[in-house]
């Protein structure tokens, strides 16, 4: 049954990848990249069970953390054009 789950995740991965390639705006591509990250995380967990090596779950955790940080960082870059920008929510500099 883990093989069926892994296959479904592969299909979802291919569809999200298609959106990342097609996407007309940069936000479509980012959303697709975020979905690919989530699906890859689940894929790592399922593959760990499939191969009888549940140590893969640690890799899935690290991958999820990196996915979030990467999405927010790229988003900030495309919104302000600079990673060091404080943004509109921050206190104005005196």
């Amino acid at each position, binding site marked *: *049954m883990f093989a069926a*789950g892994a296959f479904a995740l592969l299909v*979802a991965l291919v569809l999200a990848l298609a959106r990342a390639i097609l996407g007309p705006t940069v*936000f479509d591509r980012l959303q697709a990249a975020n979905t690919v990250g989530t*699906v890859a995380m*689940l894929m790592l*967990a399922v593959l760990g069970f499939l191969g009888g090596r549940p140590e893969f779950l640690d890799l899935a955790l690290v991958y999820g953390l990196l996915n979030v940080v990467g999405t927010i960082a790229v988003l900030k870059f495309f919104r302000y054009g600079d990673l060091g920008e404080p943004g509109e929510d921050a206190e104005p500099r005196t």
Partner: protein
Amino acid sequence: MNLAPDILSWACLVAGGAFCVIGALGLVRMPDFYTRVHAAGIVDTAGAGLMLLGMILQAGFSLIAVKLLMIGLLILFASPTATHALTKAALARGLAPLLAPGEDPSKP
């Protein structure tokens, strides 16, 4: 070997995989960025939650289940944050949502 948790976990895994495929299909087929975000939410909530629940049922009461629970919590907190930031950035950039023909975009 008791059969009931196995059958339950298999059902959860298959349903989670189906929800993942449905969400990714929506990501491809939806007409507009904001509706695509809506479709991607299915993958993050129903798909991931059901698959993780199925794997927790397979793992039983152990450290593996705790790790799977941590992954689920991470997805639960991180995915809405990323989606919120994404749509806020898209609105700030001036990406207009697709509206019905007679609708006025200035009125929410």
